[in-house]
């Protein structure tokens, strides 16, 4: 099972069946698998904070939902987390492709990519960095369990060392 299949499997085991996302070439390896799988309803959002709203609505009616985005898009949804998910205590798994890491070619991606985890710290949102597929199933399933037990957003930050970096 490769890293993308492992993440899909962990989401299923946690009953996460609605995915809201904004496309990214690296996370495409995961979202593509979910789009082909009838278990998931994958919603393409126009902006990352919209994805947060859609996922929150799904959770409000009893369906577990996760979001996928890249770090630039995390910058677009800080207020949605701060003013919706944190005060309402929405357990929202966020899979974030960290730009600005080793191999980054685009200067415009560096500042937001490298600011993502400090901003998560400031918000008090726990995160784990996924930079290897070593025990990935334990890391992802454990993070999802913690997310729902603590009823708060939680981020899984994926680096090129996990997914191979930008392919195009």
């Amino acid at each position: 099972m490769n890293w993308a299949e492992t993440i899909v499997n962990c989401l299923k085991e946690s009953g996460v069946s609605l995915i809201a996302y904004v496309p990214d070439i690296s996370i495409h390896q995961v979202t593509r698998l979910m789009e082909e799988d009838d278990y998931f309803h994958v919603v393409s959002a126009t902006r990352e904070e919209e994805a947060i709203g859609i996922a929150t609505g799904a959770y409000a009616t009893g369906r577990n939902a996760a979001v996928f985005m890249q770090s630039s898009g995390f910058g677009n949804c800080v207020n949605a987390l701060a003013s919706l998910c944190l005060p309402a205590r929405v357990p929202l798994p966020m899979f974030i492709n960290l730009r600005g890491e080793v191999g980054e070619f685009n200067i415009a991606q560096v500042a937001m990519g490298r600011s993502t985890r400090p901003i998560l710290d400031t918000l008090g949102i726990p995160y784990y960095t996924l930079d290897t597929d070593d025990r990935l199933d334990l890391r992802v399933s454990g993070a999802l369990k913690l997310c729902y037990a603590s009823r708060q957003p939680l981020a899984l930050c994926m680096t090129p060392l996990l997914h191979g970096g930008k392919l195009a």
Partner: protein
Amino acid sequence: MHRFSATKRVKDLVGDMAVVANLGPTTDELWHAGHRDRNFYTYGSMGLCSSIALGMALSTDEKVLSLDGDGSLLMNMGTIATIGRENPANLIVVVWDNEQWGQTGYQASHTAFGTDLEGVARSCGIEKTATVEDEEELEATLLQAMREDGPWFIVAKIEEEEYLPVAPIEPEVTLHRFRASFGA
């Protein structure tokens, strides 16, 4: 048409339908119209009211009503395109359109200068749309939207009025009550 009076009529019509309210006066007035566990009050996240309602509509077979606002929807117009793309038959969006950002000092919004939100919805593939000017028209259109498949997009033109006291509600309690009403 005034929003609080119209909100009371909406509340009397919708039975136990899930209702998501935009932040500020729309949420406060929905609470003052009469609390229900299926009221999803929002307190921040401006622009996301109809996105939250979309996520609900994709997760239940029951009808879901969004009570959005012109200023808020202008902040997240992309969600109208997502509603058009997902095409949920059970989603009803009502946009209270006062053509201004009322709570921040009555600054004119873009709908006062010709932005046609109903036209935006139609261009995004939403076929069931209307613009209503009074409570009778709103009631008739909402009843039709409750009977017929959507998605529905209804612009309700309103005049601003004095605000009611802020509703004494907590986000965490809102979410807990709302989920419990869906057996979660």
